[in-house]
């Protein structure tokens, strides 16, 4: 999860920086510099070695997805308010939220000159969904009808193509889902749903080293462990054409070194600020410092399968939540890099409402003690919070623990796992002893991503064993709602009830803390916390 970005180990533990990052909108930003702009100027971005080959359905961590996003455009994208913007699609329509008709804009070409057609999409998706091709993000296609034939849970695949995808003509195709989903269009903005050129299938491995896409930039070179370079694609027809000549993604071992290089002018855009520099980066960079919220949330999840919490009265969890002084912790230990959360859904997501959790997220030691007492106390009077030591979480875990202990007398210790793998392993194997830190960056900017995908009994993101029949039923109802608005409203109702069952303790929303050099202007970040590369402007020398 993205939270790892502040870790000193971030490069080494790039796994930790996993963020199934959604596609950024083509935000039109106005240049904020008075100096003349060089439309062919090249700038560099702090990054790391992508973990996987650069295949659109195969990049899950942020380094790779940043590059892939610059090379590939999808059907749609969304703006900072969470509204859909058409990119490669002329329109995506549906009458029943089950069958969607996609019409493509004509005349789009891949970087190798071949046209982008309906087949480019359908074939690419079928290829990526096929387990034989081992794409890490293949489960994204599971909403589409026929996915269970291509990738059955057990036994041999019965088909190689999903029956839900049909090419109508060169610029039209239809997507049929296995069941209606009013917000499916939002998912189409994710880079997994990219088209692929015909040349890809000849040697997918080589294509992952030298990708050919349809996006605003075309691939130039990849010097492993050093840098990746992309250049402006002159024939690009989308709304998010590049305002600069190209980007160099520079590999950094740690954000500290990148920051030092920013100051000495060796790199232009940072996507994160090292913990060491956070207290002073605004002073150092002045107006070139970026402090902006993005759609991610940190929570403390409860391991409901443990003896301690199995039959707990939610009042106890509410009490623990009220014992956490979010305001002071975000201001001090976290250097204002987070904003206290007041609900379970992150900002910038369609359906977000402030103050959903009411006073449950307000610091109140007296009430906290009282609620814990009413709920029968914390079994054992001792809790632990599991976290991964390589993710930069130690400071706030210590602070949260101190806050809980000081306010309620419940003993609290951080349970540090050496790295994200060990942390994940304990969670997967249901070996968490008490509580664990959990974070979530949006996959698509719709409220369902923060409710259904985290607190549904069988959701992938639900690793704490939380299960509530009523909530499951209401999620099903919200998913089968007739319109997007109706679905959004139903999900908001579910979120409002979460404080009665406390599947997790919301802590804070993430912010992007970044910066840029004097050479560039117009640097903005999207909801996923990634820089919007196309809109960066390079100053003439």
């Amino acid at each position, binding site marked *: 999860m993205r939270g790892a970005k502040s870790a000193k180990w971030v490069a080494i533990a790039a796994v930790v920086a996993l963020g199934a990052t959604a596609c950024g909108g083509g935000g039109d930003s106005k240049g904020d510099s008075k100096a003349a702009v060089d439309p062919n100027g090249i700038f560099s971005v702090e990054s790391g070695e992508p973990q996987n080959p650069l295949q659109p359905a195969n990049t899950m961590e942020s380094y790779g997805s940043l590059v892939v996003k610059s090379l590939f455009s999808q059907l749609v994208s969304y703006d900072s308010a969470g509204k859909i913007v058409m990119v490669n699609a002329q329109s995506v329509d549906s009458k029943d939220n089950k069958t969607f008709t996609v019409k493509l804009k004509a005349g789009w070409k891949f970087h190798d000159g071949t046209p982008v057609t309906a087949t480019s999409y359908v074939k690419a998706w079928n290829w990526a969904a096929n387990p034989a091709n081992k794409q890490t993000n293949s489960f994204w296609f599971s909403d589409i009808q026929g996915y269970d034939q291509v990738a059955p849970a057990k036994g041999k695949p019965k088909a190689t193509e999903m029956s839900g995808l049909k090419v109508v003509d060169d610029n039209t195709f239809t997507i049929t889902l296995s069941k209606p989903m009013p917000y499916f269009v939002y998912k189409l903005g994710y880079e997994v749903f990219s088209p692929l050129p015909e040349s890809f299938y000849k040697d997918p491995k080589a294509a992952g080293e030298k990708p050919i896409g349809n996006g605003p930039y075309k691939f130039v070179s990849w010097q492993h462990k050093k840098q990746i370079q992309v250049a402006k694609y002159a024939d690009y027809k989308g709304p998010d054409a590049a305002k600069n000549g190209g980007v160099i993604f520079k590999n950094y071992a740690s954000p500290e070194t990148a920051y030092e290089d920013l100051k000495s002018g060796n790199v232009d855009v940072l996507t994160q600020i090292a*913990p060491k520099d956070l207290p002073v980066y605004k002073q150092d960079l002045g107006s070139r410092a970026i402090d902006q919220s993005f759609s991610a949330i940190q929570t403390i999840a409860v391991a409901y399968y443990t003896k301690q919490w199995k039959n707990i009265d939610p009042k106890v969890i509410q009490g623990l939540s009220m014992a956490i002084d979010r305001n002071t912790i975000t201001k001090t230990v976290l250097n204002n890099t987070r904003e206290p959360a007041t609900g379970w859904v992150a900002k910038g997501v369609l359906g977000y409402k402030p103050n959903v959790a009411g006073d449950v997220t307000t610091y109140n030691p007296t009430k906290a003690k009282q609620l814990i007492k009413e709920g029968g106390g914390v079994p054992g009077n001792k809790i632990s919070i599991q976290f991964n*030591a390589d993710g930069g979480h130690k400071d706030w875990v210590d*602070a949260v623990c101190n806050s809980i202990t000081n306010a309620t007398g419940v003993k609290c210790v951080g349970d540090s796992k*050496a790295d994200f793998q*060990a942390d994940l392993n304990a969670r997967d194997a249901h070996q968490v002893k008490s509580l664990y830190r959990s974070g979530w960056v949006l996959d698509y900017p719709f409220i369902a991503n923060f409710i259904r995908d985290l607190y549904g009994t069988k959701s992938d993101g639900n690793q704490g064993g939380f299960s509530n029949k009523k909530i499951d039923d209401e999620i099903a109802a919200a998913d089968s709602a007739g319109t997007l608005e109706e679905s959004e409203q139903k999900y908001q109702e579910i979120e409002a009830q979460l404080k009665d069952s406390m599947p997790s303790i919301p802590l804070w929303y993430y912010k992007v803390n970044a910066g840029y050099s004097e050479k560039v202007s117009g640097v903005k970040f999207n909801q996923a916390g990634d820089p919007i590369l196309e809109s960066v402007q390079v100053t003439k020398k």
Partner: protein
Amino acid sequence: MPDVTKTVPEAAAEDAAVAAAGGTLPEPKPEKTRSLWGDAWQDLRRSWIFIVSAGLILLLLTITFFPGWFTGADPTHGDLAKHFLQKPKMGKFFDPDWLGYDQQGRSVYARVIYGARASIAVGFGTTMAVTLVGGLVGMIAGYFGGLVDSILSRLTDVFFGIPFLLGTMVVLNSFQDRTTWVVIGALSFFGWTQIARVMRGAVITTKQADYVHAAQALGASTPRILFRHILPNTLAPVIVVATISLGVYISAEATLSYLGLGLNGVSWGNDISDGGNQIRVAQWIMLYPSIMLIITVLAFIMLGEAVRNALDPKMR
């Protein structure tokens, strides 16, 4: 950190081997009062290095066993609202405010005092484990020779060949809770080879001595020969290496903490690592544990140096 760790015992071994060659042979003793150890003690008492390091180590041991004598503050109690990054108040000696407060609002002074325990425990624990295991392996290999020696020597090579810090990192990663024992175990797992090599060399030299042959001829049992006759004459180089590596293991623990793999709990390494994030606003959080760490490591390395000089007649 084999930057430091790997190289230190190595150098110590070379030096110790030199010491072993001349220093530990039972020489004819015309005057009974002048034994190797007696000479060494006479030497040590006059060495400024020894006096300074022994004094420091005594102080550190006192801090380790009686932290309460030095501070009444609780090193784990933090108050963000009141003490977040509060500057040191240099006039207030031994007060919790003395060295300032850290990012959790905990007293840096209290943490520096209580942190000694972890470093000393890891240093002594690892050195003891390493000396026991390495000493035994080296002694058996050196004394029996032949196939036993070949097998044990190759085994030592196997563990020696893997870079120390990297090996330790892998071992530590496979434990869920990094207690003092786990850290000691991980450091010892790759650390014992040094002592084994030194011991083996010393035993091979010693077993040629006439009095060992005499004991064998008289039918003394193998354990008796090993522990009664050979061991006392091989101790000198082992003690030298062990003392120096004590400092090195303390430093190694701090480096592991820096890499996020240190002890769970109060330790200088953890505080240096955490304090590094505040370096630009609150240097004292990192500064004081660093100073304590450097002094501690220096004290043990100096002691080792002094002991070596004393035990090696060629150095006089």
